[in-house]
């Protein structure tokens, strides 16, 4: 079972976490609102993991990640609408398709733009993100049910704790295996020094594309889970600010650390949602004043991320199988 090799600790931790969370949900100690937040944080972690592969491991600065998240969300919702899917089991192929659709889009857009240098790549991905948003805003001109700027309503609520956990564990393992394979090694070489990597004979274009495509796949699947959790989609959910959200999680969690992304994702969503509950409505607008300040200070003080190498042994996922 080379797929699961060395994953014992991770699987154990995941199982325990699942049992604890499930018990908490069943006991009625937490409201549905909080349950939704927990599921949402796991979904955000998955999408951020995608960005981590693109940026944290391979060093490609993408500011348009939310676009792929959105594409996956809309694609999955359209498919469940088309095929009248209502339950988790037939939903899994839908998720896979949504992920693949996002990945394909990522692959196609990546072909021309991934060869650009960081700052230009940033603007290109930013531009792509805006393009996608314009497309989504007008989506009902192509396909009525997508709703365009009215939003896509009536999506069946299929996402539940079991589905999210299962999908996450699976995809985290897949990603881990990729990272500790030769591909992952190439990715990190490219991040460290692209020119030297080329000199070494690494097909950087192909490797960069692979990382990007995989990252978009994860974002697409996450989007699919999101759509069927909130049962409502609106293009404004998938704008630049959402991309920044993912970016912050990747940076805070430490680029190149899966554990870091997981912990940072939990902390981040918890923090944002916690503020929503804790702060009186007048102070809520202060959130987005402190977040960028936090980002700036982080860049000055700890550019490699908040969660150092030491802690990443916690979940047993950041080491070679």
């Amino acid at each position, binding site marked *: 079972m080379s797929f699961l090799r060395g994953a014992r600790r991770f699987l154990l931790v995941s199982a325990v976490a699942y049992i604890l969370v499930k018990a908490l949900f069943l006991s009625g100690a937490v409201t549905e609102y909080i349950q939704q937040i927990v599921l949402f944080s796991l979904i955000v972690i998955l999408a951020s993991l995608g960005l981590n592969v693109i940026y944290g491991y391979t060093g490609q600065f993408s500011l348009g990640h939310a676009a792929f998240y959105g594409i996956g969300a809309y694609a999955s919702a359209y498919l469940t609408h088309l095929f009248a899917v209502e339950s988790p089991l037939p939903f899994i192929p839908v998720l896979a398709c949504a992920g693949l659709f996002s990945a394909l889009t990522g692959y196609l857009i990546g072909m021309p733009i991934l060869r*650009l240098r960081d700052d230009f790549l940033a603007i290109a991905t930013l*531009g792509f993100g805006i*393009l996608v948003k314009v497309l989504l805003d007008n989506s009902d001109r192509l396909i009525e049910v997508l709703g365009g700027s009215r939003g896509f309503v009536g999506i069946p609520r299929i996402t539940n704790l079991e589905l999210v956990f299962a999908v996450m564990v699976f995809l985290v393992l897949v990603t881990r295996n990729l990272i500790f394979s030769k591909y992952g090694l190439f990715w990190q070489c490219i991040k460290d020094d692209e020119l030297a990597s080329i000199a070494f004979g690494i097909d950087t274009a192909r490797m960069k594309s692979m990382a990007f495509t995989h990252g978009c796949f994860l974002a697409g699947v996450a989007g699919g889970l999101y759509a069927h959790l909130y049962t409502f989609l609106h293009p404004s959910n998938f704008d630049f600010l959402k991309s920044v959200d993912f970016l912050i999680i990747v940076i805070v969690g430490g680029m190149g650390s899966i554990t870091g992304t997981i912990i940072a994702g939990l902390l981040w969503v918890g923090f944002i949602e916690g503020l929503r509950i804790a702060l009186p409505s007048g102070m809520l607008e202060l959130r987005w*004043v402190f977040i960028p300040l936090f980002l700036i200070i982080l860049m000055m003080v700890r550019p490699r991320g908040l969660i150092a190498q030491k802690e990443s042994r916690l979940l047993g996922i950041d080491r070679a199988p």
Partner: protein
Amino acid sequence: MELLGYILQQLVNGLQLGAVYALIALGYTMVYGVLRLINFAHGDIFMFGSFVAYYLIAKWQMPLPLVFMITMAATALLGLAVEKVAYKPLRAAPRISLLITAVGVSLFLEYFLSLNAIFTPNYIAFPRPFEVVDYDLSLVAITNIQLIIFSVTTASLLLLYLLVYKTKHGRAMRAVSHDHETAALMGINVDATISFTFMIGTALAGIGGILYAFAYPQINVFMGIMPGIKSFIAAVLGGIGLVHGAVLGGIVIGVSEVCVSAFLSSTLRDAVIFVILLLVLLLRPSGFFGKRREKV
């Protein structure tokens, strides 16, 4: 004849927009030239300029020339502050850290200024201190606003051109944009030059902010985002780091935007601009006037 008049009119509209984009693009291109940094916050400094002008005109009824001078000084100071506080400490850091910081500065400016205690998140009507006058020239009609925009932009460009190509400071800027270390070896104070460049660039953005508010008299703290991005695209289109590139790029983007709106559909206007960007980046990344230097 009618059709010709219609097309010409749309071109004039495009030039109006393009002139403002050119002013903002100049700031981007100059900063990029010396720092190789896309100052994401540039669009927000442009916005700040509009707001400063708003307060000067609406609350203190200042005469126009004074408004221009104070706004330019305010935006220049803001640019200086941003450079010293956020960018300078990271000069040696990997470029991506700098980019992320720039994103952070941009977001911070937007949201901090949107607080009710500071400015406000609403749309504010910008009071034009003069009436709009339409000059009918048989084929086209030009408003006094457009004349003001064209003249101020042209004057600023000429002054800038003189500065960059005919003065010692300008030579220092060009030297620093080539190579920091060699410039330092030549006795140029690199830090001071960079700061100076920033200030000039942001002062221009301030002028752009006033002119934009004259033309489209409704300001809002998030108004700088799209013009900022489009101006950056304009700078890239013309050749990033080049003054004439920024001007050409600005005009092309402005005219394209208006033409798409006029002849295709308004909803496509942003989409087309980004398609233009992608095409430029793929086919001629160094821009129209740019030399084929390193692979971008």
